[in-house]
C-alpha cells in the first residue's frame, strides 16, 4: 500500500525467534497449569486434614471405658419403701452398693484410703445408673447382677494413655493406689471399651464421662423445626411475589436491595437483633428454641428467597401461558402450575438454608442459648441449647476427655449436615426437570 519497502524480519529469522521463545512459553504454560492444579490440591488437602483431624480425635470420643461390677441388688437397701417409686429409690443406698461392689471387685475389705480412691474411680453418676437399671429391670431386685459403670474421666484418660504411668505421682492427676486398682481391674478383665451410651443418651454434664449430646440434639431439632416452619412459607411467598406478581417499581426495588443486604449481614448481628427486639423489647424468655428459631429463620430467609426465585425463574413461560390460555386466573396459574414445578428447586434451597441454620452458633449465643441446661427440652419455650453451642461450650472445658467428646459431637453434627446436603443434591437430581 505504501511505497516504502517492508523492512521487517525475514521469514527465516522470524521462525527462528519464535522457535527459540516457544520452549520458554511452553514451560510457562505448564507452570501456570501446575499452579492452578496445585491450588486445588492444596484446598482439597485442607479439606482432608480438617476431616481427618476431626475423625482421629472424634472416633475415640464415640467410645469410652466401662468397668463391670457385680452388684448385690439388696431389695431393702435399694428400695426402702418397697414400692419402686422414684422417692423410694432415691432415698435408698445405691451409691453405697456400688462402692461395696467395687471393693469386692478388688477383693479387699478396704481401708478409708482405698474407699476414697475407689469412689473417685467410677463415674459419680453410678448410683443413678444403678437406680435406672432397677427401674428398667425390677425383677432383678434381690439378685446379684453384673452391671457396667463408666469409669471416671481421669481413669479413662489413663487407660487411653494420656496420663503416663512413668510420670511421678505428684505430677499425675491420679495416684499410685488408683493405678494399682486399675491394674487389678484389668487383670480381672472387668474393664471394657465400648460405644458410649452417655454420649448419645446423656445430657449436658460437668463430668466428662457422663456428658452427652441428647439434650443439645433435641434442642437443635426443635429450633430447626421452628426455623423451617417460619422461613419456608415466608421465603416461598416472598419469592412468588417478587418473581410473579410484583410490578417493577421503587417498592420492589427496595425489597430486593434489602434481601441482598440481609444476605451479607454477619450472623452475629441477627443475634443482636434477636436480643434487642425479642428478648428486651417483647420480653420473650432467654435460652428458648422459639426465639432461636425465629432468629435463624430471619437469617436463612434471604438464602431461601434467592434460591426459590431461581427455581421459579427456571419454570418456562410456556407453562404459564398455557394455564392462562385455558382460563386459569393468575393465582391459579401460580399455585397449580408454577409452584409445583418449582418445588424441587425450592426444597433444595430450603434444605441448604436449614443446614446453614443447623451449624450456626454466634446468633444463638447472643440470645442466651448458651446456658448450662441438664433437662432435655420438651417444648418451644423450654430452655434449651443446640449442638453447635454445646460444641462451643465443651471446647472450653479443661478435662482431657471433653476434647474427645467435643470431636465426637462434631462428627454427629457433620453427619447431620452431610446427610442434609446429600439429600438436597439427590432431590435436585431426582426431581429436577430440564426444559
Amino acid at each position, binding site marked *: 500500500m505504501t511505497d516504502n519497502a517492508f523492512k521487517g524480519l525475514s521469514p527465516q529469522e522470524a521462525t527462528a525467534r519464535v522457535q527459540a521463545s516457544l520452549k520458554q512459553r511452553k514451560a510457562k504454560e505448564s507452570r501456570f497449569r501446575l*499452579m492452578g492444579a496445585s491450588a486445588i490440591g492444596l484446598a482439597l488437602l*485442607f479439606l482432608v486434614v480438617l476431616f481427618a483431624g476431626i475423625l482421629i480425635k472424634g472416633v475415640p470420643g464415640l467410645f469410652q471405658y466401662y468397668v463391670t461390677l457385680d452388684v448385690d441388688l439388696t431389695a431393702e437397701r435399694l428400695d426402702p419403701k418397697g414400692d419402686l417409686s422414684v422417692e423410694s429409690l432415691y432415698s435408698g443406698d445405691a451409691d453405697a452398693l456400688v462402692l461395696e461392689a467395687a471393693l469386692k471387685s478388688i477383693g479387699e475389705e478396704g481401708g478409708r484410703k482405698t474407699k476414697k480412691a475407689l469412689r473417685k474411680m467410677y463415674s459419680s453418676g453410678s448410683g443413678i445408673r444403678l437406680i435406672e437399671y432397677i427401674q428398667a429391670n425390677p425383677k432383678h431386685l434381690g439378685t446379684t447382677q453384673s452391671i457396667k459403670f463408666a469409669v471416671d474421666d481421669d481413669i479413662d484418660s489413663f487407660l487411653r494413655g494420656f496420663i503416663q504411668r512413668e510420670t511421678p505421682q505428684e505430677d499425675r492427676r491420679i495416684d499410685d493406689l488408683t493405678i494399682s486398682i486399675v491394674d487389678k481391674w484389668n487383670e480381672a478383665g472387668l474393664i471394657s471399651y465400648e460405644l458410649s451410651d452417655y454420649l448419645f443418651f446423656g445430657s449436658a454434664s460437668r463430668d466428662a464421662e457422663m456428658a452427652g449430646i441428647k439434650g443439645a440434639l433435641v434442642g437443635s431439632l426443635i429450633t430447626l423445626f421452628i426455623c423451617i416452619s417460619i422461613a419456608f412459607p415466608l421465603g416461598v411467598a416472598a419469592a412468588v411475589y417478587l418473581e410473579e406478581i410484583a410490578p417493577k417499581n421503587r417498592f420492589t426495588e427496595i*425489597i430486593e436491595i434489602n434481601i441482598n443486604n440481609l444476605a451479607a449481614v454477619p450472623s452475629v448481628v441477627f443475634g443482636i437483633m434477636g436480643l434487642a427486639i425479642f428478648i428486651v423489647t417483647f420480653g420473650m424468655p432467654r435460652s428458648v428454641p422459639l426465639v432461636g428459631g425465629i432468629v435463624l429463620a430471619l437469617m436463612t430467609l434471604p438464602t431461601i*428467597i434467592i434460591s426459590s426465585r431461581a427455581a421459579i425463574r427456571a419454570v418456562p413461560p410456556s407453562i404459564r401461558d398455557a394455564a392462562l390460555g385455558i382460563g386459569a386466573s393468575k393465582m391459579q396459574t401460580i399455585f397449580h402450575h408454577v409452584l409445583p414445578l418449582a418445588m424441587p428447586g425450592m426444597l433444595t434451597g430450603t434444605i441448604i438454608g436449614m443446614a446453614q441454620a443447623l*451449624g450456626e452458633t454466634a446468633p444463638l449465643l447472643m440470645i442466651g442459648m448458651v446456658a448450662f441446661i441438664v433437662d432435655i427440652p420438651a417444648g418451644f419455650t423450654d430452655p434449651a441449647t443446640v449442638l453447635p453451642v454445646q460444641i*462451643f461450650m465443651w471446647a472450653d472445658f479443661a478435662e482431657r476427655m471433653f476434647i474427645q467428646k467435643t470431636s465426637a459431637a462434631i462428627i454427629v453434627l457433620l453427619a447431620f449436615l452431610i446427610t442434609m446436603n446429600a439429600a438436597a443434591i439427590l432431590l435436585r437430581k431426582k426431581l429436577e426437570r430440564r426444559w
Partner: protein
Amino acid sequence: MAFSFLFLLLVAICIAFYLAGRKRVESARLQGIKFHSLPNYHGLWTALLAFVPAGGLLITWSIVDIQLFQHWVRDFYPADVIVSGGSQLVVALAKVENMVAGVRFGEPEAWVVQASDAWTSWASTSTWMKTITVLVLAVALGLYGYRQIEPSFRARNGVERIFSGALIAASTLAILTTLGIVFSVLFETIRFFQLVPPTDFIFGTEWNPQFEGAERAGSGGGTATYGMLPMFAGTFLISTIALVVAVPVGLASAIYLAEYARPKARATIKPLLEILAGVPTVVYGFFAALTVAPLIKNVGEALGLTVASESALAAGLVMGVMIIPFVSSLSDDVINSVPQSLRDAAYGLGSTKSETTRQVVLPAALPGIVAAVILAVSRAVGETMIVVMAAGLAANLSFNPLDAVTTVTSQIVTILVGDQEFESAKTLSAFALSTMLIILTLGLNFFALQIVKKYREQYD
C-alpha cells in the same frame, strides 16, 4: 398452653367453616345452579374470614397483655425500687414473674405476693376475655361469610386478594428485618455515645471496658476506656491473613476450574471445595484452637520466635481456608462469563492458553474478581466463632501476626453472652461496635455490587 390450645381450636373452627362452605356450594351445584367460583373458593373464603381477624387478634392480645401486666405491676413495687430504677426494676419484675410461675426462692416479700396475686387474677381475666372474644369473632365472621355464599358471589377474587396481600406481607418482611436490625443497634448506640463521646470511641487506641465493675465494687482506680481501634486493627490483621491464604488459592483454583479442568473433573471438584464453606464455623474454631494454634506455637518456638498461644495467625489461616470457596466459586462464575470470542481472538493471534488467560481473560474478569474478593473480605470481617475460639480477648493494637489480638465480633460476643445490664456503658459498647460492623460489611457489599454492576454493562 392456653395460647396453643386456643389456636388449635381456632384452626378447627376454620376447617369446619371451610367444609361447610364447600359443601353448601357443592350441593347447590348438584341442583344445577351455576356459581361464579368453584366450591373450594367459597369454602376458603368462609374459613379465611373466620381465621384472619380472629387469629390476628389472638396473637396481638397475647403479646400485648404481658406488656400491660408488666406495666401495671409497677404499682406494687416499693418506693425505693422505683426511685433507683434501672436494674432494680428488672430484678423486681423477675421476682414477681418467678412467683407467678410458682418458683420460690426463700420467703417472698409481702409486695411480691400481692403483685403476683394481682398478676394471676389479671392473667385469668385476660385469658377468659381473650378466649371468648376470639371465638365469638371467628364464629360471627365465619357465619357472615357462610351467608354471603350465592351464585354471583366472587369468592375466588376475594381469596386471591387475601393471598396476594399475604404474599406482599411476606416480602416486606425483608424490609422489616432490616429496620429491626437498624433500630435495635441504633438506639443503644446513641445511648452509648451519650456516655462515651463518639470521637473517643472511633479514634481511641485503648480498649479496656472492665474497669467499670471495679469502680462500682468500690475499689475505684482507673476509668474504663472505649477505643475501637485495637479491635478493628485485630479484625484487619486476621482478615488480611485470611485473604493472603484464600485469594491465591481460590483464584488459582478458579482459573484451573474454568480454563483447564474437564467438565467431569469440574463437576466433582467444585462441590468438594464448597464443602469447606459448609462446615460450621464452630468446627473451624475448634480446629484452629486445638490443632493449628499449638502447631504454630511449637513451630514458632522451635525457630526461636515468641508466639502467643492464641495467635492471630492461627485464626487467620483457618479463616482463610473457610473463605477459599467464596473466592473460587464467585471468580469461577466470573471467568466463565467472559465471552469466548475474546479467547478465540487471543488464540488466533497465536497466544498459548496461559497467555490468553493472563493477558485477556483475567483483565476482562478483573472487576468481578475484585467483587468476589470484597465479598470474601466482608465474610471474614463478620466471622465470629473462629475468632471467639482461637483469637483470644487481649485488645492489643498490634500488627504482628504472632501476637494475640481481638476482633470486633469476638468482643461483641464476649460482652453480650450471659446476663447483662442494659444501663452500663460496657453492654452498650457492644451495640456501638455492631453498628460499626454493620456499616463496614454493608459498605463492602455495596462496593462489590457497584463493581459488578459496572462490569455487567460492559459485556451484555
